[in-house]
């Protein structure tokens, strides 16, 4: 650049290699955090097992081969939430999925799918009732948002579309989806028997950052 004109790359070139490295590393951190809308790097309190994560990624890829975003075009974000097991009886179990504030706040849920792994204890078909529960306006009780009856014939993964329930939850400002699984008699939950780490239930939500509405002023 002409003498006296400010030139960032020239200034960088004038620094010692160590200082250059520090400046560029700080720039890379700041760039990634700002694009992810994070103030600082998150502190991880509940890391997920790699087995469960790899299984989830395989399931997503199997479900949506284009999810890899390999075309180089920017794809919508996909968020995985693994469940925390809640109360259970001999006939039912409750699973809690707590989504992040970012997801509940300023994103549009394009699709949300619940993935359950059935370990069917016996040879015959096992009818399972899946209820999606959401907190009532007081937040003290839960109400049934939807109920689905599934016939589980064999062990393996099953999926259930929970997009509407998740959108309605976020619409109410809640971040937590509760799923209740109930079997007719004392069969032992078809979900928990023999479940290993990589068969942990999870919800995969495909979300897109809401673009700021352009207000037309007349």
């Amino acid at each position: 650049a002409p003498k006296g004109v400010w030139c960032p790359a020239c200034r960088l070139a004038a620094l010692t290699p160590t200082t250059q490295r520090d400046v560029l590393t700080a720039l890379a951190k700041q760039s990634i955090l700002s694009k992810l809308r994070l103030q600082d790097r998150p502190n991880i309190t509940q890391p997920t097992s790699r087995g469960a994560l790899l299984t989830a990624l395989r399931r997503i890829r199997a479900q949506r081969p284009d999810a890899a975003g390999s075309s180089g075009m920017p794809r919508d974000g996909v968020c995985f939430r693994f469940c925390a097991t809640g109360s259970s009886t001999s006939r039912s179990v409750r699973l809690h999925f707590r989504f992040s504030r970012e997801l509940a706040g300023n994103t549009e849920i394009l699709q949300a799918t619940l993935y359950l792994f059935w370990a069917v204890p016996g040879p015959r078909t096992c009818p399972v009732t899946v209820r999606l529960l959401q907190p009532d306006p007081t937040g003290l009780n839960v109400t049934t948002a939807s109920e689905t009856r599934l016939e589980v014939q064999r062990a393996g993964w099953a999926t259930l579309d929970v997009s509407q329930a998740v959108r309605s939850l976020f619409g109410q400002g809640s971040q937590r989806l509760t799923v209740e699984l109930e079997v007719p008699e004392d069969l032992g939950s078809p979900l928990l028997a023999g479940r290993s780490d990589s068969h942990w239930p999870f919800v995969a939500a495909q979300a897109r950052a809401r673009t700021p509405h352009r207000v037309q002023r007349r």
Partner: protein
Amino acid sequence: GIDCSGDSRMCCRKEFFVDFKEIGWEDWIIQPEGYHMNYCAGLCPLHVAGIPGLASSFHTAVLNLIKANNADAAVDSCCVPTQRRPLSLLYYDRDSNIVKTDIPDMIVDSCGCT
């Protein structure tokens, strides 16, 4: 585009890799292992203006000579990214959700003169 070598002065792409393990981010960024934060640097003499990378054909060389002889007609020129791609991340967010997202235009693949 041209990758910068030791003493390149012309417009080229400088490679710079940030290893997430080196900066202590490997616990919350699951994939990839680092970020190629390449950037563009170098001079854009007037006769190279408007051609991504350096002259590489007879046609371009002739064009350059014409430009160089009419230098007063030309304007300034800058070394900028001419091709970029997204950075795909798989990471934990603040609530330990696992998020897969592509941040567009984060990796510079080639540089050239405006």
